């Protein structure tokens, strides 16, 4: 069913738009809603193909989420899209009660997540959405790494029939997966194996983590293992612990606040079951700024070099603080 795999850099949000059309062909119950951002979120592709099943709600995101609740309660399969800032921020209460609490099969396609949306600045750069959505009971949180995985993630969200928050990005990003993966699997893919350090990345930081691993191998002779966490919640703790017990130290990387985000998700698992040093690359206690998307990423150190540097710091600390594992991975 999935559309064609892409080979050239392209934004993950395009995968949402393309997969949505596929799903619309497959199931008449699929409906799409947007809040005056249909071109940006790419839901316009669905709107052009199925105008009767597309509802542009105007700049009223809270209203859109509650309308989706009514649609799903009456047997439809709504996909709601807008910028991440409005989906997770403005409409939080509507998502909480109408979607998560009711455990309705509603997919939130949140585009323009993180600071890489660039010029619009702090008011639009959503860096808390993973934390907000992860805190919601019954909600799944998925941040795909590239177009091909984003395509699978959109279809997986439909198939799971669970309330799902999908986070997409604005800029074109390099392809990580050669083909559209058959499945999201456990939610974590080990993209590169290594024994010295674990790099745990999500979304736009995955290809950067792969670049960082390459640099570490080339410049430092360090063998880094790279984990792509597409499904941040529920998190595949087993794969994380397996890697941590092998390497004994990790760096997380996300285009998001480290508080409540991927860093905390990984630290929660590690702190309880296999405490090792875990350093984080992400947004600190700060808001974004205006600039080109790439300049914003540079500004906040959300780069391959940022990850590699953090890894080098972690590796210095590793012999001091790490110790033999308390429990092996089989313990989990």
């Amino acid at each position, binding site marked *: 069913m999935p559309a064609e795999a892409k080979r050239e850099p392209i934004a993950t949000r395009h995968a949402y738009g393309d997969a949505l059309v596929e799903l619309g062909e497959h199931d008449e119950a699929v*409906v799409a809603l947007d809040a005056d951002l249909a071109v940006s979120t790419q839901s316009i592709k669905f709107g052009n193909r199925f105008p*009767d*099943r597309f*509802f542009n*709600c*105007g700049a*009223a995101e*809270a*209203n859109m*989420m*509650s*309308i*989706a*609740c*009514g*649609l*799903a*309660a*009456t*047997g*439809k399969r*709504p996909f709601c899209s807008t910028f991440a800032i409005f989906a997770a921020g403005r409409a939080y*209460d*509507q998502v909480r*009660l*109408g979607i998560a*609490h*009711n*455990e309705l099969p509603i997919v939130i396609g949140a585009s323009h997540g993180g600071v890489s949306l660039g010029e619009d600045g702090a008011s639009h750069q959503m860096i808390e959405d993973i934390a907000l959505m992860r805190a919601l009971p019954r909600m799944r949180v998925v941040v795909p790494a590239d177009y091909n995985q984003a395509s699978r993630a959109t279809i997986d969200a439909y198939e799971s029939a669970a309330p799902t928050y999908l986070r997409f990005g604005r800029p074109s990003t390099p392809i990580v997966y050669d083909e559209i993966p058959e499945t999201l699997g456990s939610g974590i893919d080990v993209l590169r194996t290594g024994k010295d350090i674990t790099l745990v990345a999500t979304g736009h930081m995955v290809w950067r983590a792969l670049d960082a691993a390459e640099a570490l191998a080339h410049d430092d002779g360090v063998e880094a293992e790279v984990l792509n966490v597409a499904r941040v919640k529920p998190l595949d703790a087993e794969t994380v612990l397996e890697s941590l017990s092998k390497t004994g130290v990790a760096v997380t990387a996300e285009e998001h606040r480290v508080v409540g985000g991927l860093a905390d998700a990984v630290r929660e698992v590690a702190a309880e079951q296999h405490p090792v040093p875990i350093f984080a690359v992400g947004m600190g206690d700060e808001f974004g700024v205006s600039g080109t998307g790439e300049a914003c990423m540079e500004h906040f150190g959300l780069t391959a070099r940022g990850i590699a540097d953090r890894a080098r710091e972690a590796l210095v600390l590793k012999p001091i603080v790490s110790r033999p594992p308390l429990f092996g991975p089989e313990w989990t």
Partner: protein
Amino acid sequence: MADPAANLARVSHLRPVPDPKPPPRPSEPGRRPEPTIPELERWATVLRGECVRMLAVAKSGHLDSSLSAADIVTALYYRVLRHDPARPGWPERDRFVLCKGHAAPIQYASLAHHGYFPLGDLMGLRQIGSQLQGHPDMTRTPGVEVSTGSLGQGLSMCVGICLALRLDGLDGTAQVFGLLSDGDCQEGQTWEAATTAVHFGLTNLTAIVDYNHLQTDGTTEEVMDVGDLRAKFESFGWDAVEIDGHDMAAVVDALERSRALERPAAIIGQTRKGRGVSFMEGRFGFHGKPPTPEQAADALAELEAKLEEQTRALQAAGEER
């Protein structure tokens, strides 16, 4: 688990409102019993009594908000709604959404009297293990269409239901009724939904406002005056009428009339908070406060007297006929 029987025992000192007649048979599509206006008024009294007892046991909840809505909710469940308790998921049913979710007791009483769940379950309200949550919960309670309780969201949910019904070709048969409060009309989202309903050309949506003029911190006029709601809905492109929300005949007429309209319909029901319990009626200070055992006993005595009077009048009318 909540034990309804034990809870009933806890209020044995309160005189229960007797249920002198069995509940009506479930409405069947195309063959629906039509209770008369006096019969509906009597049912409203029965349901009010249930609310008092539920709140007295739960020692928590919104009694006065339930009482102000009692006549409207009775008119809906006992006369206007096409529904079938044996098939809560019947696709062609009318939908009722209690946007003012805090008035859940009056909806629960209606649902229980129609057989959606046993009457005894009412006494589990707001307690651990009960399916009757403080605010309506679609995941737990049969007959609840969507979860509500966060003001302002309900009318949007109604819009979503209307859109789904239209896609299924059912908008000509199934009407969606949303019951809002003054507080709902203070929330901006209600007006987003009102805009949307007209823009999408909905023909099967009825919004009823239980305009009781009292809220948590004072009168609605003092706290945040929502003004002329009929004019506001009209200015949004709705058909809007204003009625006495306790005049059963007017309520039934307005609800039935709204079904025939080809655009969204608003019914502004002027009501009094705590209606039917004289020490509470129109008085500030009862919102979200359960009655004390003494207040509950007084309220039930008043409602029981009213019920006896209404029952006698119905019997007399029946003999005349």
